[in-house]
C-alpha cells in the first residue's frame, strides 16, 4: 500500500524528519502526507460516499440478483432455484400486461412531454413581462411532490367528484360521469396524462437553456440569408437543440420506466392490471404477496432495458 502512495508524490524537503522524533510526530506527519498526496487524498475523500453507496446500493443490487434466483418469502430465506422465477414470469399473463403497460407508459408520454416542453420553451425564449413569475408557475408540476400532486389528479379523475366530468356534463357533451381510473380502457390514458403534466417542466426548462445557448448571430445570419421564422426554426434551432432534447428524452425514458409513485397512488396497478408497471407489480408480488424472490425477478427484468438506454445516454454524452 505504501508503494501505491509513493507513485505521484510531491518531493518534500523535510530536514527534521530524519532525526527520528517521537512515534507520535512521525505518525502525524505520515497522516498529513496522506492528506496531501493526490493519490491518497482522492481515495480518502471518496470513502464516505462510496461506503454509503456500497452498502445501500451495490450490495442490495447483488442481493437482489441472488434473491431473484431463490424462492424466498418475506421473513423466510429461500433456496436456490435458478431461473425459475424468471421463467414463471414469462408465462404470467399479468406480467405480459405489465411489460406492455410500461412500454406504452414510457413511449407515449416521452414524445408528448418533449414536444410540449419544446413548445413551452419556444414561448419562454421571448422577452415578456412577468417572465420570472411565469417561469416559476410553469415549473410547479415538477416542483410539487409527485405523491401530493398525484392526489390532486386522483380527485380530478374521481368517478363522482371529477371537475372534468362536471364540465363535460354541463356542456352537454356527456350524460354520465367518466370513470377515468376505473375503466380499464381509460385508465392507462389517464395515468399518461398525469405523467405528461408532471414532466413538461423538465423538458421545458432544459430545452429553454439549450435555446438560450444558441448565439443570436446565427439567427441573424439566417434571416439575412433569406430565412423566415419557420426556416430558422428548422435549420438553426432544431439542429442546435437536438442534443439537449435527446439527452432529456433518454433520461425521461429511464425515469418513466422505473416510475412507481404516480401509478401506485392513482390506480395501484389496476383496474384489471391495466396500469401495472414493473415497479408496482414488483411491489405487489414482493411485498403484498410477500414473494420476494419473484418480486426481485420482476424488478430485474427492467435492468437490461434500462441498461440499453443508459448506454445510449453515455455514448451520446461522450460524443457531445
Amino acid at each position, binding site marked *: 500500500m505504501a508503494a501505491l502512495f509513493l507513485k505521484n508524490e510531491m518531493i518534500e524537503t523535510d530536514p527534521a524528519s530524519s532525526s527520528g522524533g517521537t512515534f507520535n510526530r512521525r505518525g502525524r506527519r505520515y497522516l498529513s502526507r496522506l492528506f*496531501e498526496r493526490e493519490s491518497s487524498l482522492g*481515495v480518502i475523500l471518496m470513502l464516505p460516499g462510496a461506503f454509503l453507496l456500497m452498502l445501500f446500493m451495490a450490495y442490495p443490487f447483488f442481493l437482489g440478483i441472488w434473491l431473484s434466483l431463490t424462492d424466498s418469502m418475506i421473513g423466510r430465506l429461500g433456496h436456490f432455484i435458478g431461473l425459475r422465477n424468471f421463467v414463471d414470469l414469462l408465462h404470467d399473463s399479468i406480467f405480459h400486461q405489465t411489460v406492455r403497460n410500461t412500454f406504452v407508459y414510457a413511449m407515449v408520454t416521452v414524445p408528448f412531454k418533449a414536444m410540449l416542453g419544446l413548445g413551452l420553451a419556444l414561448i419562454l425564449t421571448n422577452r415578456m413581462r412577468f417572465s420570472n413569475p411565469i417561469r416559476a408557475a410553469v415549473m410547479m408540476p415538477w*416542483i410539487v411532490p409527485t405523491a*401530493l400532486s398525484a392526489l390532486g389528479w386522483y380527485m*380530478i379523475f374521481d368517478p363522482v367528484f371529477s371537475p372534468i366530468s362536471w364540465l363535460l356534463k354541463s356542456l352537454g357533451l356527456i350524460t354520465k360521469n367518466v370513470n377515468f381510473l376505473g375503466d380499464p380502457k381509460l385508465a392507462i390514458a389517464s395515468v399518461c396524462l398525469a405523467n405528461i403534466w408532471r414532466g413538461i417542466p423538465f423538458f421545458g426548462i432544459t430545452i429553454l437553456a439549450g435555446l438560450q445557448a444558441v448565439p443570436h448571430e446565427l439567427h441573424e445570419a439566417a434571416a439575412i440569408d433569406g430565412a423566415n421564422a419557420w426556416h430558422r426554426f428548422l435549420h438553426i434551432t432544431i439542429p442546435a437543440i437536438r442534443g439537449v432534447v435527446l439527452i432529456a428524452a433518454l433520461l425521461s425514458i429511464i425515469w418513466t420506466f422505473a416510475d412507481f409513485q404516480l401509478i401506485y397512488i392513482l390506480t395501484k396497478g389496476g383496474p384489471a392490471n391495466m396500469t401495472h408497471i*414493473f415497479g408496482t407489480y414488483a411491489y405487489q408480488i414482493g411485498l403484498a404477496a410477500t414473494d420476494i424472490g419473484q418480486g426481485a425477478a420482476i424488478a430485474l427484468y427492467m435492468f437490461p432495458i434500462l441498461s440499453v438506454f443508459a448506454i445510449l445516454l453515455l455514448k451520446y454524452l461522450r460524443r457531445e
Partner: protein
Amino acid sequence: MVGSRTLGRQILNIYLPLTLFVVFLLFPLYWMSIVSFKPTNDLFEMKFNPFWIQRFTLENYLYLFQNTDFPEWVKNTLIISLLSTAISLLCSILIGYALARLRFPGSNFLGVGIFLAYLVPPTLLFLPLAQVIAKLNLYNTYWALILTYPTQLIPFASWLLMGYFRTIPKEIEECAMADGCTRVETLVKIILPLSTPGLISAGIFCFTLCWNEFLYALIFMSSGPMKTIPVGTVSDLIKADTLFWGSLMASAVLGSFPIAFLYSFFVKYYVSGLTAGAVKR
C-alpha cells in the same frame, strides 16, 4: 428584428399558447387548493360550480392538525430531509472535489460508477434493500431513510459539484498552496466559498428529492406517527367510510407549500441545477 413585433402576431404566437400552458400546468394545484378550503359537504351540492369556492373554511386544516398525525409527519419529513441533505452534501463535496481536481487510482472507475449509480432507480433496489434495512434493525426508524436517501442524492450532487469545482481556476488553488495551505484547507477555505451557487443548487436538489421521496418511505416506515408527509397523506387520509377530500387536499397543499416556498426564493439555483444535467458547457 424588423417585422417580428406586431401585436397581433405576439398574441397569436406567444400569449395565447402561454395562457393555455399556464392554465393546464396550474389547474391541478388550483383544484387542490380550492378543495382544501371548501367544507367537504359542499362537494355534494350539485348546483355549486366546483371550480370555485362558495363557502370558505379552514376546518380541513384544523382537522389536519388536531385529528391526524400530520404534525408528526411534518417533523419527520423535515428532520429526515435536513439530515439526508447534510450527509449527502458532505459526501458529494468530497467526491466532487476528488473527481474534479485529483488524480488517484480508481478515479475513472469512480466517475463512471457515480454516473451509473445515478441511473439505478429505486424500483430496482427496494425489495433487497428492505431486507438490508430489516437486518440492520433500522426498520421504522429515521435512519432507514437518512442512510438510504443519500444513494439517490450523492450521484447527481457529486456530478453537479464536480462541474462547479472545475470552473474555479486552478491558479487560485495553486496560489493558496504556494501561500501555505494544505489541500484540505484550500477545499474548505477557497473552493467552498467560491462554490456557493453550486452548493445551494445541490442542497436544494437534495432537500427537494428527500421531501418528495415516496417508495422507500412507504416501505420502511410502517407506523402512523413515523411516516413522512407524502406517505402519511396517501396511506392514512384516504378513508373508505368517511369523506376525506377536504383534509386530503389540505395535507397535499400544506405538504407542497414548503418546497414551493423554497423554490420561489431560489429559482435560478433550481434551474441551474436542473439544466446542469442536459446542457453541455
